[in-house]
Each structure stands twice: as structure tokens, then as C-alpha cells.
């Protein structure tokens, strides 16, 4: 099993039957150092936007086309005791991604290894992926004349080269735990919850959300308190598939009705003509 503690040479395991890249992000371990945020920018060569001092410390405040992942800081006070939680934002790499399903030109694809990646040469910029993503992940280069959709690639290039994704590589506390199997990470998540019942809410975010994702989150607080959306368990592309699946029927009905009336029309026309003559 490829994990953060494994050496890079042995991971990810490409010789094994099939790699299914997965993160288990345990926010209880996150110290908010933002090494992942910087490592991501460094690996992807991403630029920055001018920012202002942010009293919450979250900066940039949201993901953007230059920021595929960031750490959001949440300060809370309860009964006079303050708490400070850190949660990582980024692409969840859904098993059945809405973004991939809505893209008209296959600019976004779900790779066999798990990462959802973007092929910029195909994209015409309709931004349906941005609208459709239940996690609001894909971002657009609004300021550019030839804009690209930008999002976390799961460091697909690194994975193929047998290296850990840059965020996981940089994470000092093992918050971002990589595995080459979603199942293994799910088992690990369940184990952690079982072993430390008081430490986590009994919910693995991403196990069922949007029909299941490659990136899963554990946390001490419900994740909607850590800036993550409540996302239904449904596989979202199923919603449009119902319609698309119905198209042949629509075609049949319209054609039948059309041809029917056309036939009747022609007969009537002929009868009219005959009558005229």
C-alpha cells in the first residue's frame, strides 16, 4: 500500500492491477501550515493574485484559477474557550464527476487512475463544469483572453511518475494521506473513527457525497462548519442521464407524430387537388 510514509520509489504502485488514487484528509491532524497550498502552487507553477491581510488567515479567501488548494481557517468560541480549525479545500475527484459528464468536448476526463484532469486544447470555455460541480471546484481564468478552466489535477503527472501528489508530499503531519485504493482509505477512515470515537464526527465526507469521491475528509466538526458544502449522495450525472436516455423515445414520438400528420396532410392535399380538378 502506498502511503505518505512509504518511500517514493515504492509508490504509487503501478505494477499492481490498478491504481485508484485517493486522499484521506484528516483535518484533526492539520496544523494550518499551508505547506500544501504552497507546494501545489510551486509544482503547478501557479501565479498569485495581490491580496490584503486576512484577519481569518485564510488567503486567498477562496480557490481560484491560480489556487487549486487552500487552507481555510475557522476560529470559534464556545463557553469562553476558543478553538481554531483548519480545513483543506480542493477537488474531490468524484467517482462519477459532474464536471466530466457536462463537458461537451471531453476537455475534462476522469482518468482510469482516478484523477479528473483537464485537456485545455479541447475546451471552448462554456463553463458548464464550473456551474455543475457540486463542490464548486473548477475555476476560470476570467482575466485572460484565452482562459482555461483550472483545478487540482491530483498531480496526475507526478502520479504517473511514481511520486506522491505535491500537497501530500509536503504535508508534515500526514493530514493528507495518499493511498492507491479508495477502499483502503475508506477502511482507514472507518478505523480511525472506531478507534477515536470522541475525536471525529461519525461521517466520512466523500464516502457517499455526489455518489462517492476519491478524496475523503475526516473532521472533528461537521464539515459544513468547515466551509464544505452539504452535497447530496446522488451521482449527479444520473440526473441528466434520465433525460438523455429519454431522447430516443422523444425522437420516436416526434417522428411518428410528424410523419403521421405529414401522411394525412399529403392525402388531404391530394384529395383537395383531385377535388379541384
Amino acid at each position, binding site marked *: 500500500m502506498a502511503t505518505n510514509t512509504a518511500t517514493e520509489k515504492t509508490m504509487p504502485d503501478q505494477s499492481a492491477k490498478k491504481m485508484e488514487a485517493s486522499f484521506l484528509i484528516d483535518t484533526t491532524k492539520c496544523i494550518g501550515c499551508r505547506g500544501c497550498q*504552497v507546494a501545489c502552487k510551486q509544482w503547478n507553477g501557479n501565479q498569485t493574485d495581490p491580496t490584503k491581510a486576512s484577519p481569518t488567515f485564510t488567503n486567498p479567501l477562496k480557490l481560484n484559477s491560480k489556487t487549486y488548494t487552500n487552507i481555510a481557517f475557522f476560529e470559534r468560541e464556545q463557553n469562553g474557550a*476558543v478553538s481554531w480549525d483548519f480545513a483543506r479545500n480542493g477537488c474531490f475527484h468524484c467517482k462519477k464527476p459532474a464536471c466530466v459528464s457536462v463537458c461537451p468536448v471531453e476537455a475534462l476526463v476522469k482518468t482510469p487512475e482516478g484523477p479528473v484532469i483537464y485537456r485545455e486544447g479541447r475546451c471552448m470555455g462554456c463553463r458548464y463544469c464550473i456551474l455543475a460541480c457540486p463542490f464548486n471546484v473548477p475555476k476560470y481564468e476570467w482575466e485572460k483572453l484565452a482562459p482555461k478552466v483550472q483545478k487540482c489535477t491530483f498531480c496526475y503527472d507526478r502520479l504517473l511518475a511514481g511520486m506522491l501528489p505535491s500537497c501530500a508530499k509536503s504535508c508534515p503531519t500526514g493530514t493528507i494521506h495518499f493511498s492507491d485504493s479508495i477502499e483502503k482509505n475508506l477502511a482507514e477512515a472507518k478505523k480511525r473513527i472506531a478507534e477515536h470515537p470522541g475525536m471525529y464526527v461519525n461521517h466520512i465526507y466523500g464516502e457517499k457525497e455526489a455518489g462517492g469521491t476519491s478524496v475523503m475528509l475526516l473532521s472533528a466538526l461537521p464539515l459544513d462548519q468547515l466551509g464544505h458544502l452539504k452535497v447530496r449522495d446522488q451521482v449527479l450525472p444520473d440526473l441528466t442521464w434520465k433525460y438523455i436516455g429519454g431522447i430516443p423515445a422523444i425522437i420516436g414520438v416526434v417522428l411518428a407524430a410528424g410523419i403521421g400528420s405529414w401522411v394525412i396532410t399529403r392525402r388531404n392535399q391530394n384529395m383537395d387537388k383531385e377535388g379541384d380538378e
Partner: protein
Amino acid sequence: MTNHWIDLKNADVVLVMGGNPAENHPISMKWIMKAREKGGKLIVVDPRFTRTAAKADLYAPLRSGTDIAFLGGMIKYILDKNLYFKEYVANYTNAAYLVNPDFRMPGQLNGVFSGYDGKARKYDKKTWSFQMDDKGLPKKDMTLKDPNCVFQLLRKHYSRYTLDMVSDITGTPKEKLVEVYKLFGSTGKANRVGTECYAMGWTQHTVGTQNIRAMSIIQLLLGNIGMAGGGINALRGESNVQGSTDHGLLFHILPGYVPVPSAALPDLKAYNEKFTPKTKDPKSVNWWGNRPKYITSYLKAIYGTSATKDNDFGYAWLPKIDEGMNASWLMLFDQMFKGKFEGFFAWGQNPACSGANANKTRKALAKLKWMVNVNLFENETGSFWKGPGINPKDIQTEVFMLPCASSVEKEGSITNSGRWAQWRYAAIPPIGQSKPDTEIIHELYKRVKKLYQTKGGKFPAPITNLTWNYKSKGREIDTHLIAREINGYYLEDIFDAKDATKQLGKKGELCTNFVTLQADGRTSSGNWIYGGSYTHKEGKIINMMARRGKADPTGLGLFPEWSFSWPVNRRIIYNRAAVDQQGRPWDPKRAIIKWNPDKLDPKTKKTAPGWEGDVPDGPAPPMADEKAGKYPFIMRADGMGSIFGPGLADGPFPEHYEALECPIQENLLSKTKINPAIKLFHDGKTGAPEDIYYSCDTRYPYVATTYRMTEHWQTGIMTRNIPWLLEMVPQQYVEISKELAAEKKIVNGERLKVSSARGELTAVAFVTGRFKPFKIGGSTVHQVGMPWCFGWFTPKDGGESANLLTSTIGDANTMIPETKAFMVNVEKV
């Protein structure tokens, strides 16, 4: 660090006080979190709820500058509740020693120890001594009951540190104090270990050294020194600051913590007499008794064949300081400010932002004729002449910029906080015209030497006699040759003094370790503690620092085959204190070393009793062995851990004093408000206006502290120039409590003016629940805090250095500036 980074995972309780590892040493949190996963507890004591506190099992706030009160209360609690580790305290520390009956303590003398001279602000330490028996050994009471024994004096001294008193001083709620004391005190058992992590939050106070002393006493009381998962660990703030201290960066030490000679010591003999401690106790190893070997080997390393027995090995060429002279940071810049320097190399530093009272520092720079700024980037120091409020026309200082290579552009060793010297390789050649520091120094050396040779000079010998044999393979400077010189060579064949047939070293080879170094000039070593770091093994030259073996035989994370840990690859120092007198580990599950009487010699297959595990603090058998047994603390002359520490300038026991600038009229504990042994640059009446300070002054009503954070490093020169980091924290900010914000109608995110007696700056208000007002002596005291990573040079609207506000005052022992506690005002702009 007595221990090392990975060892943090072995702790049952990690106390973080005076540091902020999650933000400033993020990798350390990997190990702290591992300790927590195994059920360990993390305690954070800090004025501010930090990112480390966010991960803590227990957080307690305290007002900046009151750590000794907090820790004194813990000592009292440990003693009162009998939580200390009796066997350890009685046998491994000086707790049983009887102290001079004339010794008096602050409780008896209005806050000072006996021997204080108020005019000189100095102690005569005559009474801070032990009673000696006729053999010249300290008198002891092993029952620890004698009223003059260290243990009883300790109890007496800290009996004043009651919960009420401590809470009144620190502002920490009493129940929090008890929680912390109880949890950390739980590690006084043999099978429980606690560690402490500190950084500048403890050192940068007028009582900095005593802060650490107080914790050392606690760790000795609880038997945590020498243990895996224990110790007292300075988290170093730069990747190689441990290395730079090891190699003699500070003014008062030569490489290997060998004292810098003073003018009062005319020859090597006088030097050795003064600095070689002696003991009459056969059970004490007294390792510093070897000092003559180290100074001679050092002189041989730097002066080579010029250093002979006849010329005292070139001792006369070593620079000397005046007796009692202090040449530390504050003093240097004070002298510069007074116009006593012509030139200045600002090498890899940014004093215009990093030094306390930066306005004074900047004025001092203007007094220079020339300055050489050696840095990766242009900075506030090199550009001081065009800084805010300065007319370049008024500045006569000529500034030269020498761009130097970054750490990834050069090869060499880096020594981390855990004393691991790790070899690194150059990833890329230096960019543009930049050069590695060694090459810059080399060029400088060549030219200075040539000047001395051609034009002569007052005292050319120290330069002209220097060895400089670093050329190899077409390279002017080969770092490997420097590393070998540091390790040292056998200049002659060396034989065992007791057994002349046993050869210890072969002429021309690298020294095996410092044990074989000689005081007669037959060996050289640039830094004795690095002996064995680059060595000959079976005829081959091995760079021990470049090793990357991943074996972990003890399972405690020692990784003995990874890099080289000084001394002699020992991973935890004082590890002989981790076993009982028979050599059995206190905690078998954390057996850092253990004595195996049945150990087999792998070569001879015969029983050869010995130690197993880490490299022990000396191979001698356990302390109980009547003939050869030794005490555990081998670096102490008496072999004991010092609960009573007469070596310091400001008292053998830590005592709470207020910071130079503090919010209260009087020290609640005594009539002595500030550390009586600190040097005052301004006595309140006379002194440079730049050195002014105001205590308990309504104009500056809020306690302030400075700190670093994850996103920026030091003055920010390396991080403010990296957009990825700047994007996260782009501007100077000041963190203030919601309560203070409400009182002053401050809105989160608005610009504030922060001012002290010495300067002012603007900062963005971060209104947060992570700072809370303190109840001090019945009244409310607010504290604010800000990072010191910004400066006017870049970015454009980033803001100024927080050091414009800090004061010119240092610790009584080290003179490290007190930048962690001072007084400010905050106002809406």
C-alpha cells in the same frame, strides 16, 4: 535540544511553552502528533492561542514575561504533591548538596540573592557555593532533609509561588495552572516521560536564561532529562543555527563551546587553568577536564605547522576580548551607534529589521563608513540610506552588495536542532553573479592576506599563519576539505597512553573521534564535538554526515545510521540518566540505553559487559559499579544535574522579575521589579533617547509581543520575495482581543497605529478570540502581538518591522534582546 526532533514522538506529555512549533517548526508537529496518536498529551502555554494551541489537549494563557512565575508555581506544586522522581533527584542531581549557610534568597532579601551590588548591578557569588568535606567533595544529605541542602532551599524559595500569587502575576486562571501542573507533574514516574519545547518565547526576555533554568529544574525533579521522550528542547529557528553556534558564531565561544580567551589570560597555560574544571570525585567523568586537548587541537587546525609547542600553538594569535567584555548584538550596535565602528559586514542578516529597537540600529548604520551587505536579496539593511524618513544626501555610508548563493546552490553540512549534521548537495549552480559564502570569504581572505603580505600591518600573524588548504579538483574551495579539517587529523601516530602497543591513530588519517585528541599538538580538530563526522574507516574516508541509513534498531526513532549526531553520534545526551544506578532503564519500554552484563563481543564471542542502545554518555559501567561506575551528567564537573545553578549571573534559582517594560507598578512577588543583573542602556534619567523605555505608563498601556509565523521567515527577506508566501500573509498585522477592540471601537481589518516609546508603525487589525485580556493583580491587562517579518523595502504596502517598537535591553546572561515583552499603544489611524 538534549534530544532530537523524532524523539518528540516518545513523550507522554509535550509541554510547548516559549515556542510555537506548529507555526515555526511545522515538521516537528509530525512527531508531536505521533505522540498524541499514542495517547500523549500536548500542553500549550502561550499568551496567544496559536496554531500549536489549536492542536493542544490543554491550553493555558499567560502574560508575556511571566514564565518563571508560572514554572515556579509548577516546582512548588511538584514538591508539595510529592510528584518528583526521588531516586533520580537524590542520586543524579545536586539536590542533596549542602549550600553555604550564608546563602540568602529573594524571599529574605527583598527580591535579590545574597551578594548583590546594586551600584554595579552585579552579584558577588561567594555565598552561592557548596559546603565541602575534607576530601574536597560537596557535603550531601541523601535524605534531602537538611535545611541547607539544595532540595530544601528549592522548596523554601518556591514556597512563595502560591497558586494565587502565580495567577495574579501571570493572569493564568488558577484552575488552568492546576491542570497544567498536574498533567506535566504526572511525568515524575519512572514509566512516564514529559518533554519541553521552547524557542525565542523563552529566550528573548531579560530573564531568558532563567526561564530555561526553571524548566531544567522541573525536568530534573521529574527525572525527564536523558530519557527518550524527555529532555528540554530548544527548537532552533533557522535550519543551521545549531551548526553556527557549534562552530563558534557567538562572540564568547570558539568552535565546540570552547571559551574565547580574554586579554587577562596571556598564555595557553593560564587559559587552560582558568577554563579546565577540576573534580576530586573519582566517579565524576568531568568531560570538560579535556579542554586543553580541544583548544590545542583547534589551534593546530587553524594554524597548522605554524602552531608549535614553542609558540604556544599560536595562542597569542587568537583574538582576545577584554575581561568581562560583552560583544553581543545589542552591544555591537550600541557601539556602532556611538560611532565606534568604521565598517560592517551584514552577512546573511537584516539588522535594520531583525534587531531590537530597529530605529536605533538604522541610525547606527548611518554612522558607518562602509557596509558590505551579503544576502540573497536586497534588503532594508543594505538600503537603509533610502529608507523612510532618511535623506540619502545625509548618509555617508558606502554600501556594497554581495549576492550570495542560497542553501540549495552549495554543498555542505547543516546541523539541525537535534544536533544532526546532515550533508547536503548543491541542486543547482548559483544564479547570476552570486557565490557561496565560502567563496566570498575565500576571496576576501586572499586579498586581506595579500595586503598584509605586501603592505604589512600591525598584527599580520593571525592572518598570514592561517591554514587554508581547501583547494582540490580544480575548485578553490572544497567544502569536503573544510569538513575534514573540522573533524581533525592525526598529525602523528597516536598510541594509547596506558598501553603503548595499542595504536589509536595513524599519522595523516582523519581522527576517529574526539576521544583520541591530544593536548600536545599531535592532533588537529577544527571543532572537537564534530570529531568522527568525517573519518577513516577500514582504510576508506567516510563522510558520516552523508549517511542515509534507515535502520532503527531501538524502535525509538534514533536512526543511528542517518547523518551524524554530535557528540560521537549520540542521539540523546545525558542518556546515562535514563537508567538506574545498576544500568537498568527507568522505563524498559523506552530503553534508550541499558547495561548488559552478558553482552557478547561479536568478534571474540566472549562476554564483554557493555551498553546497548544509543551511544552512551561514556562507556564506563553503571554508577553502582564501585570501581569504575560514573555519574550521569558527564559535562558537569561534579557529574550531577544542577538544580542549584551558581553559574548564572542572576541567581542560582530562577526568580520572577518583570520585563523592563511592564504594565504593573510593582513586582507582586518582591520589591525588586526587574532583573537586578541586567545591563541598563538607559537608567531612566541618563542615556541616549533611542534607548528610552516606559513602564506602567498610561501612554503605552498594552503588553506587546512579537513572533514569527509559518508563512514568513525571520525578517522575511527570503519569504517576502516569494509571491506564494506573500499572498497568504501580505501585510503587517496586529492581533488584538475582541475586548480591546470593543473598548477602542476597532473594526476587524482596519489599519491601526501601534506605537511604543521608541517607534511606531501601522498594521492591519486582526480582532481575535485568540488573545484574551488578563487579570493581573486584580486589574485588566490587554496584550497584543504582531509578527516581525515585514519591512519597508518590499512589498510596497507590506508595513514596517515590529522591531521599531522593541526595547534595547537584554538578558542578564546572554544579552539576547527582550523582544517578547514590551509596552505599546494601539490607536485607530
